[in-house]
């Protein structure tokens, strides 16, 4: 927790986030190569995310499994946001949900997002195309543990559109994500 972060620091963090975002966008072309020829590589490390349901590319049976490294290869963004779950503005960083869904060739309307404690929230697919929603892997530059609501946390771009700060979106902001089913 960067409680000592000054306003100036926060500003520079925003700038940094923007730079990272731009870099991330620039790298998009390269990361798109993750699902080469419709074949999703097998996860090398511990699986932290599983996608199933209406997806085109899989790597384990009818599922697509991701380890952290795979996720970090995808196009992402840095989102300095203020959430009801923290006192301070927090910078989340991770792959874009749309990038993950593209990587698995997901088609559908609804995502059933399941947390580690088996909490399930329903998130419209449309949100992912409308907003640069990320599946955060890092908070304030550090990996998130389960205790820190990690390892994966759906973060809407509250920084870009304050209108997103409402209960509906908060309920879609699922933490400790472990599985997404595309319907």
């Amino acid at each position: 927790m960067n409680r000592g972060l000054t306003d100036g620091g926060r500003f520079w963090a925003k700038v940094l986030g923007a730079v990272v975002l731009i870099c991330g966008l620039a790298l998009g072309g390269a990361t798109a190569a993750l699902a080469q020829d419709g074949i999703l590589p097998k996860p090398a490390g511990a699986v932290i995310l599983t996608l199933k349901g209406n997806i085109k590319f899989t790597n384990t049976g009818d599922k697509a499994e991701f380890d952290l490294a795979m996720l970090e290869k995808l196009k992402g963004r840095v989102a300095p946001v203020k959430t009801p779950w923290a006192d301070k503005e927090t910078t989340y960083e991770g792959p874009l949900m749309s990038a993950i869904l593209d990587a698995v060739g997901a088609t559908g309307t609804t995502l059933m997002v399941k947390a580690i404690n088996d909490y399930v929230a329903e998130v419209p697919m449309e949100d992912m195309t409308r907003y640069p929603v990320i599946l955060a892997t890092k908070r304030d530059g550090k990996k998130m543990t389960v205790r820190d609501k990690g390892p994966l946390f759906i973060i809407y771009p509250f920084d870009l559109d304050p209108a997103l700060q409402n209960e509906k979106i908060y309920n879609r902001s699922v933490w400790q994500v472990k599985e997404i089913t595309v319907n």
Partner: protein
Amino acid sequence: MNWRLRVGLAMSIMGLLFVSALACFVLLLDRKTEAMGSVSEDMVWSTYQFDREVMKVELAMREAAADPSEAHMEALRLNVDILISRLMILREGQMVKLLAEAGLYPQLIDVVSRADRIVAEFDSIDQDGKLADRTLYLAGLLKRLRNDTSEITALANQARADHISDSRAQDVRIYLIMGGLVAAMMVAMLGVSWLLFRQIREIENSRTNLTLLSDKLRDAAARAEAGSRAKSEFLATMSHEIRTPMNGVIGMTDLLLEGQLDARQRHRALTIRKSAEHLLDLINDILDFSKLEANRVILQESDFSLTDLVESVPEMLVARAAEKDLELVVTLYPEVCRDVRGDASRLRQVLVNLVGNAIKFTDYGGIEVVVRPGESDIDRIRFEVIDTGIGIPEEEQIRLFQLFTQIDGSDTRTRGGTGLGLAISKRIVDCMGGRIGVSSTPGSGSVFWFEVPLPPTGAIHQMVPPQLRGRSVALVSPRDFLGRTLHHQLRVMGFSVDLMNTDAAAQLSYGGQHDLLITDGLLLLPPALQSLPWLTLPEAGAEAEALKRVAQQQGRVVLVRPLTPRHVLRALSEVMGLEPIELDELPRVRAPAAALSAPAAAQPAAPRVLVAEDNPVNQQVIAGFLELVGCDLEIVGNGTEAVAAVRRGPFDVVLMDVQMPGMDGLEATRRIRALGGHGMTVPIVALTANAMPGDERRCLEAGMNGYVAKPVDRVRLSAALRPYIPLRGDLPAPGSVGDLINLSQLGGLVETLGETAVDRLLQTFTKDSLMRVRAMRLSWTQGGAQGGGDHVRAELHSIVGAAVGIGMKRVTLLCEQIRDAVIANVGSEVERLLDLLEAVLNALPVTWKAINDAVASAETVLPPSSSSSGDRNGQVIPLRKPGA
């Protein structure tokens, strides 16, 4: 409600509306903020989740205690991790704030710290690898913790319920406030609507009022028009009522002037006549005043002698001036003594107005009227009326020419007058394209002046006889005004004048340098002057005495007022032994002295005239005239008598008053025409006081031949009657063409019928009349006076009827003579006259060419109309030369 109040009301309503709207907005915004504040993780959910995770960890622990496998241990660790993540939610973020607000902070701190301790203990036990042994112990701790988490969940739920109900209560409050505000807005809207409604109603009202007003105005205009019509009728009636007695005055004066009068009587009679004429003019002016008001003065321009006009004004006013012992002196510059073109009547009106006013407002001294060429324009003539009166303060001078204004309202009673005079004068002068003004110094008199364009139409009259020109006059006057003004007057006429006061005159020992002497009053003068021809101006009112005294003295003449150039020149001529200058400048009525003195028997039979007139004065006036011109009269007083008179016997002409009691002239005329025979042909001339357009038409439509407007005077009467009857005094010399035929009448016939028709008419007349002559001769020779007389007279009557109609004068005359001879039963005379008549009739066609030539020399006539031609056209038209 006045507009200020209404604007205030509207403003407050708008203010209320605005404030309400603003308040509603603020409330809604506040509520929104509140809603935003509540946008947070539900604390009940969070505490419940926490409670659930605690339970799950406890469950996992108990499972691990029962079966301490690695899988159970891992599951337990994951559950603990999740619990920790939940714990963090309760430690930071909005949830803490919410729980604190709900008053659950102590419980929260307690639960969180206890959970922290349990987790810390779990971590240390796990690190020590003694987890499997201590799970039951930890489960016991968690079970106790769960009691508290359950409680905090219940409390949070309670707090949320409280919050919801508070919020609902607040909502209710806000809704109430908003309801109030909306009500206020509605009230404001109602107020605005009410104001709008009022506005619309008032607009509607004012439109209705406007309509009503315009109706009222239309009514008022109609009433005003009716009033104006009534006024016109009133004025017409009044003018008629005044004109009738004026006829008497003028007519009687004319008769008086016909008689034997000495110069003074003549002068007085003329003054009566002139004053009466002016009175008539005034009546006309009153009639014109309505036109003046409507700003449409119609100028009647004619050529007139400016000298005569100016001279006539003081004549009318001299009596009034004399009453106040004021002198009236007229100074005429020689350049203006000429004929000019303009409206004489209006000009006189203005002059009389100004001089009359001057007399009214002057108590000492006198009034000088100066007429001279205009200052800038040669065609303009400047009239100045200079008085020695009370004068007018400068600030009053501007108002003077406005309506109903006198210099001092309080003075009206003492000075009299309507106050209309100057306003009328200004209008008239404006209409003439002139200017009018006044200059005055209070206490020393005023000069009222006007300048109007009066283009000259004739040469300058030489007023001063050659023998008098340049003579030297000694003028002695103790009075400043008279001396000064008379000096001015004489000097302007070219005399050399020495003005001196009485003392200076007394010093004079030698009068040789002067040709004559004028004194103001009967002064005692040194002998040197007494030898001069001496003109005396007696005191006003002492003229008679002066005349008596002066009459015995050789070389002394009395100066007669008013002191106009003519009067002064006449007196000067007299005292210098020259021919007296004629004062009478009226249109000269040639007194038929010879006719009057000639024996009546030598004249042809007198024309018979029927006069139908109800007014005895007019009867006398007309009778006086007609007798003078040798007419035989019958006078009746109304229409019925007139019809009866015509039925009784033939008349050569009927003079018919239009307005008579009982049957009026128009009806009488219609009845006469309906009688047939003589009644159809006898010329009827209307007499009317209504000088209104349309009267003439009505007269002619009734069957009248001509029209004379009252006041009747000799000239008009003669002009109207001459076409129908021979008037003594203008009978042509025997033997001339005019003796044979009334040229004017025949000329009129030619004008209306055409030459060929008249030619035929004459032939028919000649043939018819010759037959009648033969018939008469037969009757006369066979029956004599007893048997044939009536037949002869009937035949004669027929011939006369026709002859009069076509102006056969000589034939008419002869017929009258034959009739007289028949009545007298002088057979030889009857035969002689019948022969003569036959000869005349035979000569008619032969002399037609001569007649034509004679007609060609005639100038203008009143054409006879209906009786002979059947054409009811009574217009005065110039006669064109036949064949021209």
